[in-house]
């Protein structure tokens, strides 16, 4: 059984990926990388990652968020984060990545920020 589930929704030209489970070394990180690569291949480069149901993330998962961010930027797009759990927020603060990512608590506000 997979440790991570990624489902995709479309809101205008923004693609929302709802992640649940664990974004950790191995399967979880690889699944996220594959999902982002597929979206970029399809020309979808406005991406919102909903992390509200991610129960666990490690340094590999954080690294994958960073890789996703840079890959999307490179394609002229924008990757933003939605619904950080307290734990993920703590890890992003420790790594000073809260200064890098655009982070939102409300989906409507996040979607509006792409315009």
């Amino acid at each position, binding site marked *: 059984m997979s440790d991570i589930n990624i489902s995709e929704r479309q809101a205008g030209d923004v693609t929302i990926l709802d992640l649940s489970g664990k974004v950790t070394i*191995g399967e979880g990180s690889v699944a996220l990388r594959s999902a982002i690569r597929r979206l970029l291949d399809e020309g979808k480069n406005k991406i919102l990652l909903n992390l509200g149901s991610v129960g666990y993330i490690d*340094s590999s998962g954080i690294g994958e968020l960073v890789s996703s961010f*840079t890959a999307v930027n490179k394609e002229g797009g924008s990757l933003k984060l939605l619904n950080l759990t307290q734990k993920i927020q703590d890890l992003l603060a*420790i790594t000073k990545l809260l200064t890098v990512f655009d982070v939102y608590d409300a989906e409507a506000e996040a979607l509006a920020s792409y315009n």
Partner: protein
Amino acid sequence: MTLQEVFNLPSRIESVDEAASKADDFAKKSGLGDDFISSIDLAVRESVANAVKHGNKFDESKVVEIRLSRSESVFEMSVRDFGTGFDPEEIPDPTDPANLLKASGRGILFMRAFMDEVEWVNADGGGTIVRMVKRQ
């Protein structure tokens, strides 16, 4: 009273989950609280991942040796690999603005952030031991 547990795991990624699960069970048996266990969980995952990837370089003929102990208010954990050695000072600071967008190099930062003491020693007979302590 001191509780102790020692176990070896093979050098593969699946061992990270297994080590975390065993450490969580040990911590629960020791009567530690959820926040404490959450910190241990992250530290054991990061240290075992480092041992598998960077220490033993996925060589399954080499094991990762994990020791857990709890006495009074101190929880101690050590993770040993059988690699060629490691100098934590050589790892670039991942919070340096020049390194913020690097994909890796944050595991040690997390171990230091969530445990009270972290040190690396060269093991007699080869390999590296990372020893971590957390106090209640």
